[in-house]
């Protein structure tokens, strides 16, 4: 079972301990693009003390990532910021605005968000993008494209297998199935 979420919606979410204390709020999502996953989050303090927090939250410190709060066991679940940023890679920066390019050379559109499976390892399973005319009658719509475990990505381009275009989804609710079907197709192809 996958629990899919737009990475951008996690920003600003409160971080709460299982003891009911407010630890802070999510400032940035830190990615390791090479591993295709979220490695952690930087934090802001909340309330009138708001401003960046020195400590960050590594993914393994997260108890659960829910629609209303990110739950952690306790304040000791946090780690020095360098620990979390150190798990990012040189390509950890934003892919927002990058072109979704198939390995057959078709430009499918512009990336607007990363889709993360927050159930287990915080894998990036796909991207939300605004469709170009390569997708004909769906041009201009916000769509979802699944990605394989490894893919080439820069600030300018996201390279997807041509087959991914067959599994482009219209909504996040059904996207989990699109991801499963795409991955099944990839393992058949090998």
């Amino acid at each position, binding site marked *: 079972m996958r629990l899919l979420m737009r990475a951008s919606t996690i920003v600003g979410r*409160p971080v*709460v*301990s*299982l*003891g*009911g*204390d*407010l630890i802070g709020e999510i400032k940035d999502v830190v990615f390791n693009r090479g591993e295709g996953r979220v490695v952690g989050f930087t934090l802001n303090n909340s309330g009138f003390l708001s401003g960046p927090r020195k400590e960050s939250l590594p993914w393994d410190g997260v*108890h*659960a*990532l*829910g*629609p*209303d*709060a*990110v*739950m952690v066991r306790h304040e000791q679940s946090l780690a020095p910021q360098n620990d979390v940023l150190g798990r990012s890679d040189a390509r950890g920066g934003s892919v927002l605005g990058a072109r979704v390019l198939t390995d057959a050379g078709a430009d499918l559109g512009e990336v607007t968000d990363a889709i993360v499976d927050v159930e287990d390892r915080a894998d990036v399973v796909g991207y939300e993008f605004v469709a170009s005319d390569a997708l004909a009658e769906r041009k201009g719509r916000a769509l979802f494209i699944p990605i394989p475990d490894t893919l080439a990505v820069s600030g300018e381009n996201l390279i997807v297998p041509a087959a991914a275009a067959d599994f482009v989804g219209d909504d996040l609710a059904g996207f989990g199935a699109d991801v499963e079907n795409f991955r099944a197709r990839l393992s058949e192809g090998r």
Partner: protein
Amino acid sequence: MRFTETKKHKVVDVTTAEQVAQVDGLVVDPDQQAVVAVRLRKVKGTGTVVPWSDLKSFGPDAVTVEGTASFRDAADEHERRAVGLDILGVLVLTDQGRAVGRVDDVDFDPGTGMISSVITDGGEIPGANILGLGAHALVVTEPRES
């Protein structure tokens, strides 16, 4: 009995038949899922809390004690923090990060102090599901889908 029903409770010393305090609020221990002390106001004498085990009884109109020697202040930071919290009105979050609602009331056994359920505007939660209580939220286990 409900927490909201205790707001006007007097605290009466049965040895003197005098009112010695009023109930200001009920102190909850989330680990025991129970009321563990009564926070006091308008105290004749000193002390701001009385531990549950030092109560003679918790009745529908009054709390009774035998003498006021057990009235004291919070002993350490841990107790101070618990005494300062009011569960009524607090946000309820599950341990999976989902907001259930806010606490409207708490149902407890006046004989033992055990919390049987938490009544929220998003539904009722068994006392056994309580994981933690802090200044920001009451954290409860996510109910299992049947």
